């Protein structure tokens, strides 16, 4: 009987050098941490713009059964530096001299128009209960040409917070509209 030679087999365990891999991962991590810049959250505010100059009569025939929306006009004059000089609020159809001067603070404007918007909201709800349709109130911002965008946005912000959804920006100078 032959003896089987038992061959001594050495089992070699493969060793993976993890340390250099870890070093590289830390390098990548450091790179991405240093280049990471969280972006500020952005949002948008909708606005209404006048219809394009198409010429000819308007094809939009107003409905005789629909009540007219309440319209206000806020005239915002600007200083030479581009800040708000004064805010004048009046109802559509009233003369510019009949408007109410609210100063240069958009918060004062917000408090004033919020009352009007709330009253209009109640009117719309009461009409809706009777089956009548009243479009939402409109606010036109007549803006001085030097007013900076930061302050334009402040006025839009105040208008939206007051409850207006139909806000139209136009220049004070009618020739430039």
């Amino acid at each position, binding site marked *: 009987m032959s003896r089987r030679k038992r061959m001594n087999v050495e089992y070699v365990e493969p060793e993976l050098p993890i340390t250099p891999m870890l070093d590289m991962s830390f390098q990548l991590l450091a790179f991405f941490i240093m280049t990471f810049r969280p972006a500020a959250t952005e*949002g948008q505010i*909708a606005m209404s713009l006048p219809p394009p100059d198409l010429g000819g009569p308007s094809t939009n025939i107003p409905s005789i059964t629909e009540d007219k929306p309440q319209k206000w006009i806020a005239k915002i004059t600007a200083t030479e530096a581009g800040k708000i000089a004064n805010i004048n609020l009046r109802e559509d159809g009233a003369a510019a001299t009949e408007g109410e001067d609210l100063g240069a603070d958009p918060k004062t404007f917000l408090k004033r128009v919020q009352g009007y918007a709330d009253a209009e909201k109640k009117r719309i709800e009461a009409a809706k209960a009777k089956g009548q349709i009243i479009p939402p109130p409109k606010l036109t911002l007549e803006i001085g040409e030097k007013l900076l965008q930061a302050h334009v946005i*402040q006025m839009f912000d105040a208008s939206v917070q007051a409850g207006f959804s139909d806000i139209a920006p136009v220049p004070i100078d009618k020739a430039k509209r």
Partner: protein
Amino acid sequence: MSQSNTEKCEPNLTPLLDLVLQLVMFFMLVTNFVMEQTSAEITLPSANAAKSLDKGANEIIFLNINAKGQVLLTGDEPLDNPVQVEGYLKRLAAIEMKKTGKDKPLGTLILRIDEKTPFEKSYPIMRACRQANYTKVELRAIRGED
């Protein structure tokens, strides 16, 4: 004579490597190297009432407007006057209408106007947007906390 068996004490690096790779993956996913639609040159004003983007909105087009009233385009010369802007928007509108088969562009125009842009520079661009038949035009702002 006693023989001391010295055992090597090696920490287990595999879980540490897993964790580090998880962090690397996270940062790779959130890092945005190319900002196609927004421009870092524009400093936006802040507004509390600014709303987040409507996810169900049709095609969204961003227009970046700097303090000089120029519309910045990626990889192209900026548009200097409202006539150029109107032409550019009409081309975009034509492409969209051809795609959708509608007679009006349904996309939303989002204007990213620098906070130092005077209204006399930004209003002609707003007007050009309307002249190009876009009905949904919105102003972009940073959502602030008062």
